[in-house]
């Protein structure tokens, strides 16, 4: 929006009627020559590539998953057994694992991220803002396999020795903390996911907060509000849809994450509410079993991929609808900015 608004503004100021022209196929008038037409169609052909690619790939996946879809039908989604020996495949344990670990990531990651965003947008001294934002964004640049390596040897001992025993003592009576602290479980996977979504959620939330008009803050401050009250009443209220969108984007990232989860979740194909039990997510199942799958199992794995794709798609389209209201560009890449 930052971008678009300023450009539209420019057009309006120019007042040359160009804004109207933009509605047509090109921003400025018709194309001049054959060369230009050729250029346009060449560029268009390239642009068509992604479009065709996505459709082609989706169709290809449906085709490859055909056997599994024919065999299990809708029961695939609620089947809770994944047994290559008997050739019975169900997606439930993995959908469960994905949703549970992603929910944990959101539960832990979002409050942290919003805190970070508030600090960066409202509290930080100006000279510190940019280096800090940069550090947070660098978190997104670290390859996920390195997160996994780190989680295995640095985070896991902390989980086993300190964090998991603590939660077990305090919340051991709930079904969520049964079993022994092993460190290769849904808890560790959830924590590493939380760390990984922070840069996405924090930077989008920060953008949302910084887009809040200064007048909102000034109004609150002039009524004698403290900075905390200003943030709560003026900034957070105003930016809440953006922050919500940021959370959904973070959720999308958590759902699709593969390597770090595969390396920490313990890889057990079972449904268990205890965070101290190992589990499996859709993506970790694919990564773990890809090499050896054939026939019906391969087909079932691809169907898992489709389920993952659909969930990720719904989440992202949803996020886009919300975020798109106030901000055009959203970091979709986790690539550093």
């Amino acid at each position, binding site marked *: 929006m*930052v*971008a678009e608004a*300023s450009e539209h503004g420019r057009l309006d100021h120019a007042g040359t009627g160009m804004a109207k022209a933009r509605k047509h196929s090109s921003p400025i008038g018709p194309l001049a020559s054959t060369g230009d037409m050729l250029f346009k169609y060449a560029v268009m052909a390239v642009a068509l590539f992604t479009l065709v690619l996505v459709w082609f790939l989706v169709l290809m996946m449906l085709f490859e998953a055909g056997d599994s879809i024919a065999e299990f039908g809708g029961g695939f989604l609620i089947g809770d*057994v*994944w*047994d*290559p*020996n008997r050739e019975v495949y169900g997606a439930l344990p993995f959908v469960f694992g994905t949703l549970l670990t992603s929910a944990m990531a959101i539960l832990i990651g979002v409050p942290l991220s919003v805190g970070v965003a508030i600090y960066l947008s409202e509290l930080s001294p100006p000279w510190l803002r940019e280096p800090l934002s940069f550090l947070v*964004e660098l978190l997104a640049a670290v390859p996920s396999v390195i997160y996994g390596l780190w989680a295995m040897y640095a985070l*896991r001992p902390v989980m*086993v020795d300190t964090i998991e025993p603590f939660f077990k003592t305090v919340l051991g009576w709930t079904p969520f903390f049964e079993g*022994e602290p*092993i*460190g*290769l479980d849904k808890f560790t996977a959830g924590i590493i996911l939380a760390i990984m979504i922070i840069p996405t959620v924090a*930077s*989008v939330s920060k*953008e949302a907060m910084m887009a809040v008009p200064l007048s909102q803050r000034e109004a609150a401050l002039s009524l004698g509000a403290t900075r905390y009250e200003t943030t709560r009443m003026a900034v957070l209220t105003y930016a809440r849809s953006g922050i919500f969108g940021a959370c959904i984007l973070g959720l999308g990232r958590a759902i699709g994450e593969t390597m770090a989860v595969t390396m920490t979740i*313990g*890889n*057990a*194909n*079972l449904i*268990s509410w205890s965070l101290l*039990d*190992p589990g*499996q997510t859709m993506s970790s199942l694919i990564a*773990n*079993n890809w*090499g*050896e*799958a*054939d026939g019906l199992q*391969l087909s079932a794995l691809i169907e898992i991929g489709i389920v993952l794709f659909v969930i990720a798609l719904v989440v992202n389209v949803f996020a886009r609808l919300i975020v798109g209201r106030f*901000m*055009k*560009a*959203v*970091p*979709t*890449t986790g690539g550093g*900015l």
Partner: protein
Amino acid sequence: MSGIAKREEGTREEGIVMPHKGGRAGLMIFAVLAVAAIIVVAAIATGMLSFGGEKGTVTLSGAGATFPMPLILKWADEYYNETDERVQVNYGGGGSGAGITQIKDKHVDFAGSDAPLSATESSTFGLVHIPETLGAVVVAYNEPSIADLKLDGPTIARIFMKNITVWNDPAIGALNPGVTLPTDSITTVVRSDSSGTTFVFSGYLAKVSTEFDTLYGQGKSVIWPDAIGASGNPGVTQTVKTTAHSIGYIELAYAIENDVPFAQVKNHDGNFVVASLESTSAAAAGVTLPAGDGDWSQVNILDSPGANAYPIASFTYILIYKELYNEESEMNKTAAEELVSFLWWAVHDGQEYADELHYAPLPASVVEINEATLESITYEGATVR
């Protein structure tokens, strides 16, 4: 990306670049050079190395069992030197299941598998079995307070079925008289990928425990109750090493190489036996083997009789096509010859590396069967060797 958007506002304020001026050409040149450099390196490297390839380098690719992987990688390395860096053997691991899938799809030239193919599988696909070494699966544990754990088949089965969940269970106590067992609960560690090690181990458990047989059965992947899954023998080894109070099943070589303690197992004759090269070979002493292209699915040295025979032992196989030419893999004649030469070398000279890596060398009788098998391999109908 919104970050970029914002930054870009600056561009506008700073002025506009017309093409002839060059403007911040430095940045542009830097970036173009960086990308170009990557592409050029790519092109040159591709050129150099693939020209090298035309001088007669042959790449043989294999995938599958991680059980014999250290040995096969060692062979690959030695053979590469032996052939003056002419023959590269790429062994990708990935588990026996992966190996079988990939050789069926003709993505690899040979597969490693700890589980033999079924009779129909080997005849349908025309694959032959070449047992390349013998291995033992040991029950490794991480419970420092127990120096010398003794277990029997049914107890192991109950531990992995989660019927026994604590170390001081009476069943374990009965097998380890005089040992003070800790009260910790047992964490079982299993293979998350489909594997021949699991096939051998679950085969043993199914043989000694009817309950295990009915509930779980033998397979390359088993639905273990409530266990941590780790990928490959290395993964299980490392997970057992780093997880207190855990128990898992791994190939003997991994346990010895990495100083992981493992249990003595009560054998068919009622003796507690430590897994070793000798006790593994002892398990194979009395077995009769079919020809390479015959039905190997019944070959089994689990729970073999013999005073010193270790009960969880198995051959591990290399699978190749009997007729090496096919349209899909387009393997050429040179590669076919090199593949057979490599395997010939592996079952003869290669066996000397078995010992140092804790694999049991093949008995002479098995080497003879392998010779016959390799001599029967054809390329477009003509024998290769």
